[in-house]
């Protein structure tokens, strides 16, 4: 499929936008900084302002970029996996398991350093639980996976509500921030970056297979795909991406649902273009959202999940409306 001129320009454009959004994020914040101060700070990492830029803002912006990319890519995969435009990275319960374990950790007072471990354990446990319950003996069934995942997610949601109801008052705020998605304690780390890079490469290799998979399981088999294997692989990859994102920033909402859709509206459904476009777009979107989250009411910080929804909902509705008018 020949990419159209627009999609050929979009990927380099989004790369540049990613870079600019990271720069912007390093320039603004609760510590006021003029343009020349900022340039100086970028050049001198050891100065006081340099510390702010290099130790605080850039790592956080980079973490935001990764979370956005992870969630957008995961959303693309989930939508193909379930052939459901409403699918998002959290629909099959990965974030629910992670959230339950994290909140449990907060309630019993686990050391802050151990919380991410609990998060990851919860996410992985939920992935394996849904996988083994939904797999069964027979052939692939998207409905069975969807129902197993959605019901598991509801189970986690109930347990989360239970913790919120009986948990100590002084930790409720932290819990709420985690549930909404928050990057203020985010550390980028090497592992999530490795997950994003590895899965991205693998998905790029699989892109044409995803195109035929999006046309339905039977069509994909008739066009030469061993769909059982491919679908479980897609499930595991999408879940792993979600786990990595949740590990960094809690369950940031909305990015994984709307960025894949917005990207589809912009570049179409060819995953060879869609996958890089959505990943880059997700990164930019979350960096900008997080920059707003820490500056709008500075020095107070908002959970980034609130900003993604406040920005994303009108943007999405606007584009959806325009797309309908066009056709």
């Amino acid at each position, binding site marked *: *499929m020949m990419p159209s001129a627009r999609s050929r320009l979009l990927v380099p454009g989004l790369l540049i936008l990613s870079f600019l959004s990271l720069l912007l994020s390093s320039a603004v914040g609760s510590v006021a900084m003029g343009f020349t101060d900022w340039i100086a700070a970028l050049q001198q990492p050891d100065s006081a302002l340099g510390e702010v830029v290099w130790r605080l803002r850039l790592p956080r912006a980079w973490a935001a970029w990764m979370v956005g990319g992870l969630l957008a890519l995961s959303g693309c995969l989930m939508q193909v996996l379930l052939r459901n*435009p409403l699918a998002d990275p959290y629909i099959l319960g990965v974030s629910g398991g992670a959230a339950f374990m994290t909140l449990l950790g907060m309630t019993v007072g686990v050391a802050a350093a151990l919380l991410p471990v609990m998060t990851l354990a919860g996410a992985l446990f939920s992935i394996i639980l849904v996988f083994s319950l939904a797999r069964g003996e027979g052939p692939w069934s998207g409905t069975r996976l969807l129902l197993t995942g959605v019901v598991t997610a509801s189970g986690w949601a109930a347990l989360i509500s239970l913790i919120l109801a009986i948990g100590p008052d002084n930790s409720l705020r932290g819990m709420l921030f985690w549930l909404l998605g928050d990057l203020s304690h985010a550390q980028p780390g090497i592992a999530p970056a490795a997950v994003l890079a590895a899965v991205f490469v693998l998905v790029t290799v699989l892109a044409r297979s995803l195109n035929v998979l999006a046309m339905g399981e039977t069509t994909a088999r008739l066009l*030469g795909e061993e769909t059982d294997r491919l679908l479980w692989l897609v499930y595991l990859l999408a879940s792993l991406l979600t786990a990595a994102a949740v590990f960094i920033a809690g369950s940031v909402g909305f990015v994984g649902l709307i960025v894949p859709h917005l990207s589809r509206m912009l570049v179409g459904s060819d995953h060879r273009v869609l996958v890089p476009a959505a990943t880059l777009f997700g990164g930019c979107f979350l960096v900008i959202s997080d920059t707003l989250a820490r500056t709008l009411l500075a020095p107070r910080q908002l959970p980034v999940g609130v900003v993604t929804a406040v920005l994303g909902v009108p943007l999405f509705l606007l584009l959806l409306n325009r797309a309908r008018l066009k056709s």
Partner: protein
Amino acid sequence: MTALSCQALDVSIAGIRVANALDLELAPGELWGLLGPNGVGKTTLLKCLAGLTPADRGAIRIGENPLAGMTRREVAQRLGMLQQHTVYLFDSSALQIALTGRHPHLKRWDRESADDVRYAESALQAVDLDGFAERGVTSLSGGEARRLAFAALLVQDPQVLLLDEPTNHLDLRHQLQIMEIASALVADARRTALAALHDVNLAARFCSHVLMLFGDGAWQAGPCAEMLGRDALERLYGCRVEVVETAAGPRFHPVSAERPSAAWLSRKP
């Protein structure tokens, strides 16, 4: 040499027998019609022959190769199927959908070549969808979506074509068009096709052979001239059939249904 064959094939679905000990040999240059009443298992048989669902017993071969030992990719390079329903959930251009026919022929890293694109465009043209190349597929009408799926099958260009009600949703002109393309592929390119049809006259006009499924696993197969007659069709469909001889051969008119519909129509309100 046969393109598609099966020996002693037992096929069933949900406890209903579709075919008992089916022996078929479809040779290149033959266009087969698959006839039978609703629910008799035409789609099930086609899916089974495509390797999508397992048979209870028996063997299927594509050319010389047992289907059971082939990967999906190897099957897709030799056999393609037009499914009964075509639903596009994500919006792609018609050209992209047509190009998916190249998927089984391309290596993992390959992109479609300019030749592939030209070939896909000519396939769209063959089914009157030229000018639709950039059109989003979710806005196509039922008949257009159907022709697009057929175009993708043409791009796939398999040795064996299984067509599940290829004329579904199509207007008269396009019914003929699809059958003429299939007929030309079979005759000129020595392909083999098996098409489930409800229109006996399309079968009489275009097919060289027919396979009739009577229900409960009973079947008959052979050249049209021997198979298509009043008795066989009345048994097949459970309605009276009139034969009209034309210059192009016999044509068939359903006269009246003898089934319980008469009782239903005369019921007391």
